[in-house]
């Protein structure tokens, strides 16, 4: 294609944006609303993912040692646990340390137990794959000198299931939103195209190629997509910065952290812009196709 033609297509696509005034506004508004929703959803999803990862990483099991086990037996159990496939980390905790934790959690009253400590020694074990925690726990449970393995049986699985469900639902919602946006844009552009049916017909009759007719419309769709993604990008950027400033100090020291604005905002805004361009160009590509069969 000649450079002059490319220039013509650009000029033409800008001209029609202005000429279609209200239709342009309607399309941009449709894209804006959808992308805003998509952007917010994606932000929530990514943070949910992060939280889920944090939670998963934090899931550990506690292995209580038999009271009868002496020092060498406890060392032996520790080695057995370390050698179990799927175990990432093992931390030993004495009876005294266990009591200190209890005191910290439940209050000074428990200090009375310092005289005769009823607690057991314990190992805190993390699995390499949080999803495998159940099978690892089962193996450890069978070792001699293991009194009990505790990891919130049932609850962890439920949490994982819930998080997975959340991710899938979010994904489906995002896809549905994108589909709606595409449909809206395709329809809006179709209306502007119907108004220019004669023009397209004449272009075809005097021998314009399909791509020559199509390119200005596709460009127009791209501009609509870019214009429509501006407000969502600005809103998401400022909104997330506000949210981060609010939430981050409150979560400091907790296991759960939300994503730092960088590179998070680059990713989300890039995604929003890309989707704007994609739905805009694809929408007009599809709607102009029908009118090319002259």
């Amino acid at each position, binding site marked *: 294609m*000649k450079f*002059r*033609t490319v220039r*013509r297509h650009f000029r033409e696509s800008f001209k029609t944006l202005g000429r279609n005034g209200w239709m342009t506004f309607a399309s941009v508004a449709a894209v804006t609303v959808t992308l805003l929703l998509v952007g917010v959803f994606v932000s929530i999803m990514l943070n949910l993912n992060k939280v889920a990862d944090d939670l998963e990483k934090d899931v550990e099991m506690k292995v209580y040692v038999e009271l009868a086990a002496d020092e060498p037996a406890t060392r032996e159990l520790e080695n057995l646990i370390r050698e179990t496939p799927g175990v990432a980390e093992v931390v030993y905790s004495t009876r005294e340390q266990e009591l200190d934790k209890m005191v910290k959690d439940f209050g000074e009253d428990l200090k009375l137990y310092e005289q005769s400590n009823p607690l057991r020694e314990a190992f805190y074990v993390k699995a390499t794959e949080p999803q495998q925690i159940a099978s690892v726990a089962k193996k450890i449970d069978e070792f001699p000198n293991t009194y009990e393995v505790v990891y919130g049986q049932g609850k962890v699985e439920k949490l994982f299931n819930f998080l997975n469900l959340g991710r899938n639902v979010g994904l489906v919602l995002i896809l549905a939103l994108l589909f709606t946006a595409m449909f809206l844009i395709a329809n809006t552009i179709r209306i502007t195209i119907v108004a220019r049916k*004669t*023009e397209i*017909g*004449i*272009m*075809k*009759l*005097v*021998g*314009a*190629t*399909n791509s*020559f007719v199509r390119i200005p419309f596709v460009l127009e769709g791209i501009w609509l997509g870019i214009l429509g993604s501006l407000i969502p990008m600005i809103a998401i950027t400022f909104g997330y910065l506000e949210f981060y400033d609010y939430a981050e100090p409150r979560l400091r020291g907790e296991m759960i952290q939300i994503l730092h604005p960088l590179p998070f905002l680059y990713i989300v805004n890039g995604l929003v812009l890309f989707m704007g361009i994609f739905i805009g160009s694809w929408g007009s590509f599809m709607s102009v196709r029908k009118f090319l069969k*002259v």
Partner: protein
Amino acid sequence: MIEMKDVYKKYSNGVVAANGLNVKIDKGEFVYVVGPSGAGKSTFIKMMYREEKPTSGDILINETSLPKLKNRQVPLLRRQIGVVFQDFKLLPKLTVFENVAFALEVIEEPVESIRPRVTEVLDLVGLKQKARMLPTELSGGEQQRVSIARSIVNRPKVVIADEPTGNLDPETSWGIMNVLEEINQRGTTVVMATHNKDIVNRNRHRVIAIEGGLIVRDEVGGGYGYEI
């Protein structure tokens, strides 16, 4: 130049608009296509610039078979054919000059050759003075002349006119005929579907009469032959 071989066309609603057409039109000819409404004139015309495809049979334009033509090759065919319509089909927001230049822009002619060429054809159809006007500021006859200018601006070998005088009064129609005759004099083949008895009877040329999808008469220098 143009040749139809056993052309048969049946629309999806069951109407048979061409029932075995065989015709040959040579370079430089002027041909009227006449016949009552619904006889298949428009289909005959539309198949020549491939707005319609025949159900069976072959249509050749300059040795190119239209039914076998791929969709993406159609634009190249159309550049060899100028089409004029009863309702002019001008773009209302463009000036006379721009309407004509449009036909050259879409086939990516160099800018420097567009201006002189458009001026030349506007001069030929007698509208050089009105180049900056909008179609709505012109009379019907003038609009049709713009449409003819647009159809010939890229020097097609054939001009196909579908009832070019259908919307015009007799006086204006003669103006249009003069332009078409002039184009034909310069060597362009002209195929014109018409209902205008006076024109066919006065400017004698070859007449192809179509009825019920069949050519019932093909006569050089014949008259209109129908009483309306």
